[in-house]
């Protein structure tokens, strides 16, 4: 059976651990979302504008 002193430290560890895990988990998820969104919002310089002109390519006739 644990002494009152040891039991006290168990509750302290539980309280600090729970808050630490919640906050750290949330912070990591926010930073990951931020990084992902920053990447998605970055313009791609080589991306050409969509071209809807009629194609000049020849099409082989199907017998």
């Amino acid at each position, binding site marked *: 059976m644990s002494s009152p002193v040891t039991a006290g430290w168990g509750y302290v560890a539980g309280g600090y651990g729970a808050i630490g895990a919640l*906050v750290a988990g*949330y912070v990591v998820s926010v930073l990951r979302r931020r990084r992902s969104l920053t990447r998605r919002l970055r*313009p791609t310089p080589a991306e050409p504008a969509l071209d809807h002109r009629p194609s000049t390519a020849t099409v082989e006739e199907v017998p």
Partner: protein
Amino acid sequence: MTLTVPALSKHPRRSLLDRASFVLGVASAVGVVALLFLGLVVSPPAILYGETVRLIYVHPAVATITFVAFGVCALASLAYLWPRTRSPRWDHLAGASAEVGVLFCAATLVSGSIWGRYTWGVWWTWDALLTLTLMLFVVFVGYLALRRTGGDPVARAKRCAVTALLAFLLVPIDHYSTSWWNTLHQGNTVLRVGKSPLIEGWQLATMLLSFLVFAVLFAWILLRRFEVESMEARLEDEGYVWAIAERRAEGR
């Protein structure tokens, strides 16, 4: 014919917001280390609570920041509803602050439950303060769910702002419940009208530091979350612009 699409926003530059966020992040890290050192090593155990008194260096500060977060959410919602100050940024700030508030509210409930088990012998009891804090948590989770609903963004933002203001009414009731009703939960430890604090020395210093550290940590998380909220809105807007431009080009 060539499809003309408005240019996408440029990559966000290093701004004042970034620098403030960096400073707050470093201050939070240093503060957390200092608080752990003072709370777990320097501060002595209490006569009545023994080692568990160390929970007083996290639980009250986290609970206070919960109220601050929901207060920021309510103020930002008010600024959004006010026609002169209406801007999507207020809506983003309200959403970000509510989410961080829900996180701190969850931390309050969990740490309070652990402390309650030691002092009262039960993990949970339907005490006025505990029940109201749980209600606050559930109501703001509902608010976050409301933010995820579809439809017109302006109508949704107005709906959410009104909901946030109504939800905030629970905060003063929750805070003053220990004074208004007979509850198991103890009253204020430091701010007592006409009386000196119940703790002193290193215990008082550590507890006061905990309020400062969690306030800085909250400000840092809020800034980062606000950025994410703004970027998500931009992505949604630009997605619409592309979709409309493509549909127009198809119709030509």
